[in-house]
């Protein structure tokens, strides 16, 4: 699959396989990977002309023009963002180009992966593009690692505890975490511990109804109320919080009544994930059947209250938290 080479380009600059595919939907990391590739290309060829496009806005004609060699020579770096949005004819043009890339052009395609625009990502891969995969960060552990390595990259030092505190305060968004890291490193001597984080960041960014329910079910009223206030403060709707409370009581009740046994066995019988069963088994200590009846009653009342039964939905939720904790305390003494 060779094509006639233009004589005035023969022996020109060297990167003979300059098609890159950045794959993955972690936006910050993808942008960084693209930035690194651009920097590398420009390090090799300082005069290179940089052009960036959103792939969805491009038409095949434009693309052909940009990928064809320039009359005056000179390298070019072409960045296509959101490759998954590219139109059919653009994809066809890109794949045709990728099979016989031009030496002077560095083509960087960023693609979120997934089913949309799969023809482009698969086609580029099989055409021999260099693939850089940016991993999706979804587990808490990976996020903690991201923060510690981010601080290290910026020349500071942070332990896991500090990273966890920062994530609790800032939230799960990587871009916000990254900017918080750079701010912290810039504002301090670079040694970041939990105290440093709590000096600069107060509050909690990610609180869901499940935090409220978990605390209420183990009788931690103050913890549950704190989580509830934060959840309402950051705009969590009262209805999912009420549902989470009911779900918590239900899970504890079902697990408690399933008797003793391994979490996996019970999980199979009840159709729940084992981790949920394990957590419910811990929470189930201190609950009597009568107390669970009261707690479920409170959860049902709360569900009606947040759906228009009460004037003040926040108050209804607080009452439910108190009622659940009181039921556990009193053992269902009605």
């Amino acid at each position, binding site marked *: 699959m060779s094509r006639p080479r233009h004589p005035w380009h023969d022996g020109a600059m060297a990167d003979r396989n300059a098609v890159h595919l950045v794959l993955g939907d972690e936006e910050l990391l993808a942008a960084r990977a693209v930035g690194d590739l651009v920097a590398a290309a420009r390090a090799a060829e300082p005069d290179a002309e940089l052009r960036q496009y959103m792939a969805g806005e491009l038409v095949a004609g434009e693309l052909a023009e940009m990928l064809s060699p320039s009359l005056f020579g000179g390298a070019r770096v072409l960045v296509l963002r959101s490759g998954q949005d590219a139109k059919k004819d653009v994809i066809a043009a890109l794949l045709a180009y990728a099979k016989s890339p031009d030496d002077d052009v560095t083509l960087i395609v960023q693609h979120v992966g997934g089913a949309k625009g799969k023809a482009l990502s698969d086609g580029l891969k099989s055409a021999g593009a260099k693939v850089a995969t940016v991993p999706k960060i979804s587990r808490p552990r990976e996020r903690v690692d991201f923060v510690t390595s981010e601080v290290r990259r910026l020349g500071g030092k942070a332990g896991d505890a500090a990273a966890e505190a920062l994530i609790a305060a800032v939230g799960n968004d990587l871009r916000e975490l990254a900017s918080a890291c750079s701010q912290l490193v810039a504002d301090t001597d670079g040694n970041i511990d939990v105290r440093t984080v709590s000096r600069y960041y107060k509050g909690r960014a990610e609180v869901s109804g499940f935090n409220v329910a978990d605390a209420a079910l183990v009788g931690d009223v103050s913890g549950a109320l704190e989580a509830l206030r934060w959840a309402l403060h950051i705009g969590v709707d009262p209805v999912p919080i009420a549902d989470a409370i009911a779900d918590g009581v239900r899970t504890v*009740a079902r697990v408690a009544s399933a008797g003793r046994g391994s979490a996996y066995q019970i999980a199979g019988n009840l159709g729940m994930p084992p981790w949920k069963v394990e957590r419910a088994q811990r929470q189930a200590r201190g609950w009597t059947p*009568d107390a669970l009846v009261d707690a*479920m009653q409170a959860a049902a009342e709360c569900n009606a209250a947040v759906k228009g039964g009460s004037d003040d939905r926040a108050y209804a939720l607080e009452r439910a938290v108190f009622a659940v904790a009181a039921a556990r305390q009193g053992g269902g003494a009605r």
Partner: protein
Amino acid sequence: MTVWADLVGQDAAIETLSRAARAARAVVDGESVEPGAMTHAWLFTGPPGSGRSVAARAFAAALQCPDGGCGVCAACHTTLGGTHADVRFVVPEGLSISVSEMRALVLRAASSPTQGRWQVLLVEDADRLTEAAGNALLKAVEEPPARTVFLLCTPSTHPDDISVTIRSRCRVVTLRQPPAEAVAEVLVRRDGIPPNVATWAASAAQGHVGRARHLARDPQAQSRREAVLAVPRRLTGVGACFDAANALIEAAESEAAASTSAVDAKEKAALETALGAGGTGKGAAGAARGTKGQITDLERRQKTRATRSQRDALDRALVDLAGFYRDALVSSVGAPVAPVHADVAGQSAAAARRWSPESTLRRLEAVLECRAAIDANVKPRIAVEAMMLALWRG
């Protein structure tokens, strides 16, 4: 055989309505009638299954019929069949009747009757009118055109069911819960059901004519009822309560799915055909563009219908369950009334011996509270679970 034949055990109401229908005929014929003999707005109230919509429909037929409801002429047939040009039926399939729907209907109701008699607007389930829709209707009921009649059906005249402003402009026809013998009689006569089955079904359905017929004919409905009546015995612990709740919810869901999914698929196929699905050739793809929204719209309507039908199914089960605790209470206080569920009277009597009357009453109230909670939009699963736990503890 007059139009009133299907209205079971409602002699007083039939008397009122046929007198009004006679007056209405006099009005059509241009004779003078006493003021108030015929009224332009009617409110049919009564417990579920007493035949509110049947009564309203029969009255509409009597108004359109030149003989005041003979039951055999074209006007009677078309009205009872729902195809009469001057009778508009509003049968909400979703949870509520919206204001835009009601405005369109009110506009229609303002036109003159095409066949020279009466323009009738019949709203089944007027308790599902939203506040705004009720106000739109109120405007029309307040200043009705000369030959327009509004027939509204609600469970009661309570302000929760129908706004007081509408109620005060309507003449109320109160239907009573038909006695079980009357229901059984109509099942035997009209549907050809064996008398012993008819008697059992009429009593189990608590005066609900439609439900009695359904019970008598559909073995699945019978087995669902048996499952519901077995619930009190199965509540042996907290875990069993959740299992029972789960079974009840799933039964309601599958019952609803069985009744709606076939219609849903048919409607969707019809809409897709109308929008040009499956077309080939030049321009077929272009024509289909932009029609996704209409299909989504249909699916949304179907979803509200499915929600309603799920809740209705659950409500029927809860009514059956309430009947069981009612029987237990009746048996424990020794009241001289017939049990609702005569076939499980032994079980409810046995339960009554174990429970104090107070705890039976608490259980009965738990079932009724659960119905109210589901009505107030509590997640059905949560409401039913809370109820089962309360039933278990007593």
